[in-house]
């Protein structure tokens, strides 16, 4: 949909190198913060005021997320930048909708994963981080989870690139694995910044592990390992359903999908997708038989 400008000079290799450097710095900040927190955790979670770890978690993860945004956002084409607000709104609206009517899960990453599948890992990472930052406008407690959300978007994009959405049964598996990684990385934030989790239900699970004598970080990591993989498996499945329900014309306008053959059966099922396009807005046929 968008093309490089014909009249303005394109950014030179120096700018590209600077962005690559920022990307690497952001990733290093996030990874370094995590490793530091895990290695140093028992010393000051309960002894003393315990806010040095909170500050390290906050600043390290936030700086990493902001660096990633600064590196990625200017490189995205306008067609992707325009999708990011849509993703943020979907995160909020569909998350609320599913949370209230479908299942007792906290599905707040549907939009992020959708953009990652449509536009690639870089766009997914930027969307995840931006989602946390913009959402913190109404709920400042999600701000420290920006790095975790960026990681989930990036992993979802990588899964899409490597064909995990070509077979319908692979999407939940990819979501499960993403949930494990994302949950483990987000656990120190919950432990050190908030001293717990934000929900009463998840709090109960953490309490159960605490009553067995676990440290706070261990208890929260275990809780994350129980709820996050399931949550992300559902999110990935929902996204697969949504993406396959899109008409072919809409799907194929994304270069990432065309280049990496993200979805199944793009070349052959002309008739099926034309039928779907004809009934736009109404329920299409059961999805997922795309293989």
């Amino acid at each position, binding site marked *: *949909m*968008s*093309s490089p*400008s014909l009249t*303005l000079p394109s950014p030179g290799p120096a700018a590209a190198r600077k962005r690559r450097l920022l990307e690497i710095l952001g990733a290093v900040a996030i990874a370094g913060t995590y490793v530091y927190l895990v290695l140093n955790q028992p*010393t*000051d979670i309960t002894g003393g005021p*315990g*806010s*040095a770890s909170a*500050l*390290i978690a*906050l*600043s390290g993860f936030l700086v990493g997320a902001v660096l990633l945004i*600064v590196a990625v*956002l*200017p490189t*995205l084409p*306008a*067609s992707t*930048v*325009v*999708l*990011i607000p*849509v993703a*943020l*709104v*979907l995160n*909020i*609206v*569909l998350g609320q*909708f599913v949370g209230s*009517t*479908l*299942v007792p899960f906290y599905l707040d990453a549907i939009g992020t994963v*959708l953009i990652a599948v*449509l536009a690639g890992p870089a766009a997914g990472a930027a969307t995840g981080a931006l989602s946390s930052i*913009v959402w913190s*406008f*109404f709920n*400042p*407690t999600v701000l420290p989870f920006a790095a975790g959300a960026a990681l989930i978007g990036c992993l979802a994009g990588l899964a899409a690139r490597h064909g995990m959405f070509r077979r319908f049964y692979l999407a939940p598996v990819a979501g499960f694995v993403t949930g494990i990684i994302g949950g483990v990385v987000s656990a120190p934030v919950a432990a050190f910044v*908030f*001293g*717990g989790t*934000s*929900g*009463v239900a*998840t*709090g109960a699970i*953490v309490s159960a592990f605490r009553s067995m004598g676990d440290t706070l970080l261990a208890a929260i990591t275990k809780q994350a390992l129980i709820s996050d993989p399931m949550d992300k498996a559902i999110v990935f499945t929902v996204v697969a359903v*949504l993406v396959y*329900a*899109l*008409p072919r014309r*809409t799907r194929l306008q994304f270069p990432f999908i065309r280049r990496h053959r993200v979805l199944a059966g793009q070349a052959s099922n002309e008739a099926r997708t034309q039928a779907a396009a004809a009934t736009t*807005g*109404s*329920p*299409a046929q059961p999805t997922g038989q795309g293989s």
Partner: protein
Amino acid sequence: MRLNPLTSLALAGATAVITTAAASWPLSLAVAAAALALAVRGGIARRLLPAAAAVLVPLCLSLLIMHGLFFPEGWTVLVQWGPARITVEGLAFALERAAQIAAAVLALLVFSFSVHVPDLVAALSARGVQGRFAFVLASTLTLLPAVTSRVHRIRQAQESRGLVIRPGLLHRATAFRLQAVPLVLSLIEEAGTRAAALEARGFSNTGPRTSYRAVPDSRLQRTLRAVLVLAATAAVAARLWLGRAGT
């Protein structure tokens, strides 16, 4: 005097950071009270309080349950039944954390409920790099109410075509799909149109932008912002250095 949105952002952010770094509950409570007073004076308390409660009440409950009942590190036991022990240390830890988080959340919420969004967007996009970020922020804040009403319309349309949400996971999943697919499809289609329009107006071009909206700014506010950022950084550094020395 009208504050530049960046100045109030710096104020809120520095307050949140310094309160977290100080980690003393009297200061946290004082900051929370000051934020509430500001909200009442600014006439935003009615909108701010429900939002703050929605965030803080579950969080504090969760903290109280988690640390009030189970705190293996605590040794001054008040009540004990079964594996659950209410300890002084657990309660103190929970209350201290709750006060700290409440102070930071209230300070940031006062900013986001009092800021004038067009001013914030203009102030951000005047500085170049953040033009795209400003677009994402403004676009999300304007899309949100529109999409909420569209969800209602889609639901009504599907109900008029015979959608009945019956109990049972499968029925609910089908109902969800019937409503989510049209929503996502229309949003993505619209985004494509918007991208073409923005592109035609030079959205991706680099270089200076002009803005019709003049955001008030002064040398004093610029200095204040710099001082606030430095103070927050210094507080973090001092805290980390002291923490290192203490352990």
